[in-house]
């Protein structure tokens, strides 16, 4: 066991059960970056030390978040998440950051995933049992998130709130108890009224958008987001009934597009989605995957591309508005 609680930075979803069992406080570096008042300064700082202008802004934001929070240890999936994480980790190492690497097996093998997880158990000197116990604890919160997600589908909660709650469940604020209390409060004060009757039902897939007012613009255009794909995956709410290992095998995001698309199509049906927005990040390898999205989804798809943090640009607004007209 770790002797005293220590902050650990995460670059994407890393099994929080393990981190909490090991007495870490996980901090999602993406959230630190994007929730900052001046996220563009984060990008700028990374560019000054040499990150190329034509590289992904999230990676640059993560880099600067590590520095700004003075984080000493970062755990990062170097396989199955982002092709840039590898280089990011190498740079972070030269800045004296302790990097713990692990991998989601690309071939989607439960056996290999178990090995990876067990490697982490050993590394942190914890046992399976304590991890399973944490899963039980976190699943209580996840059940509430599931209710929240259902309420979004029913038009009682906005796509933006859905996004915020689900995306923040990647680290539960580093404080599950606080997260749980605030979630209770949020659900309690909800008026339970369907506010989106005359809205079109939209799904948003892809990495969370870098725009500060994306969901507001969608609402202005009468789009109700009933499915935030990656955020939904981060939240693990579809795996409350499954065991710990299978939860991270069910988690589609780090594995191939094939598997991910199957889940998306299933969710689109269940949520009765009329149009799908594929958000892509400028310079992200996942932009290539758009080909597969277009070839496999048979409802209207709008592919958007965000670059630097800030508000939605005029071109994107124009495209959203016209997309809403064709669906």
């Amino acid at each position, binding site marked *: 066991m770790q002797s005293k609680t220590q902050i650990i930075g995460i670059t994407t979803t890393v099994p929080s059960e393990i981190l909490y069992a090991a007495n870490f406080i996980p901090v999602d570096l993406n959230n630190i970056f994007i929730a900052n008042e001046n996220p563009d300064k984060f990008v700028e700082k990374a560019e000054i030390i040499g990150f190329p202008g034509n590289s992904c802004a999230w990676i640059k934001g993560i880099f600067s978040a590590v520095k700004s929070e003075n984080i000493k240890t970062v755990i990062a999936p170097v396989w199955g998440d982002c092709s840039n994480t590898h280089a990011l980790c190498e740079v972070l190492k030269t800045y004296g950051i302790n990097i713990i690497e692990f991998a989601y097996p690309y071939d989607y093998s439960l056996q290999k995933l178990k090995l990876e997880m067990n490697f982490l158990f050993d590394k942190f000197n914890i046992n399976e049992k304590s991890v399973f116990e944490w899963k039980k604890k976190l699943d209580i919160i996840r059940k509430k998130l599931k209710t929240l997600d259902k309420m979004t589908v029913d038009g009682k909660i906005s796509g933006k709130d859905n996004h915020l709650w689900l995306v923040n469940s990647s680290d539960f604020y580093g404080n599950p108890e606080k997260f749980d209390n605030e979630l209770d409060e949020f659900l309690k004060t909800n008026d339970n009224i369907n506010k989106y009757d005359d809205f079109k039902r939209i799904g948003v897939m892809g990495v969370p958008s870098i725009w500060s007012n994306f969901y507001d613009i969608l609402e202005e255009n009468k789009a109700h987001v009933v499915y935030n794909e990656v955020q939904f995956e981060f939240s693990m709410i579809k795996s409350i009934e499954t065991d710990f290992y299978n939860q991270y095998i069910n988690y589609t995001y780090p594995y191939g597009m094939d598997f991910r698309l199957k889940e998306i199509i299933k969710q689109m049906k269940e949520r009765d989605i009329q149009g799908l927005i594929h958000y892509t990040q*400028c310079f992200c390898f996942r932009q290539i995957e758009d080909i597969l999205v277009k070839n496999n989804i048979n409802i209207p798809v709008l592919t958007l591309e965000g*670059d630097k943090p800030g508000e939605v640009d*005029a*071109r994107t607004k*124009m*495209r959203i*508005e*016209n997309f809403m*007209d*064709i669906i």
Partner: protein
Amino acid sequence: MKNIVAFDIGSRLTKIVRITPGKFENHSLTHLHPCKSTVASDFPYLTSLLRGELSLSSNSPEENPLRLSVENNYFINFYLIETSYFYINKEKIIEDFPNTMIFITGYGKNNVDFLDNKNITYKKTPELVAHTRGCIYQTGLNDFILLDIGGQDTKVMLCKNGKMADFLTNDKCAASSGRFLENMSKILHIDNIGDYYKNPVTLNSTCAVFSESELIGKLSEGISREILAASVNFALFNRVKKLVIPFLKYNLPLVFVGGLSENKAIIHFIKEELKTNVIIPDFHIFNGSLGAIK
């Protein structure tokens, strides 16, 4: 109301169509001078549009606000101004249109709140929808592919059964827009760049700004300005075709509008390379403004 004015506020140019009943008179306004004028009766579809006979509006012809008196002839003026000029003088420009129904489309349509302060009512239409509709008005077609190359961007729309079914727009970069040609003509010191299409050579740069130095390099190698002008057109065509090709499978007529639809070279390349016929409506630059009228 007797008069109609439609604005297509583009990222570079604002295209205005003004429709007034009566005979010819000097239609220069305090801040605007027409670049083109016509009478509606010369174009049957314009008359139909103004009589509310085109069934695109959800209103029945009787309730159509546009249903103008059949006896009147209508005089139509077209104005083309810089969008920056429009914003600087917007208050005064609007004063030139009393007693007028106002229709607005284009990028700038979300920046016209000043009209609300003046208690002026107006109708907004999303840009691509306006383009599709303008094309239906002008060509009478219900199924077509519409290519619009403007000053800063390129859009391709698929229209089926009189409704936009899909669209693609260019990447963020201006290299597939009119601005690219404009910059290149300056470097080549050629005014009518669109006239050249013979023997193009390949320009490799993805970036429009880097293309400038590439072009200068080619000049230094002794390649003629005519060939380079053709090459610039070809480079633009090659960027634009990526947006058009996905829609060719529908086997529909291709309608070409926007500032560049006067460019002979682009039309030549579309016909030769894509083996498709090109229809250019009468008011191709004002297609969006006409389509905003509903």
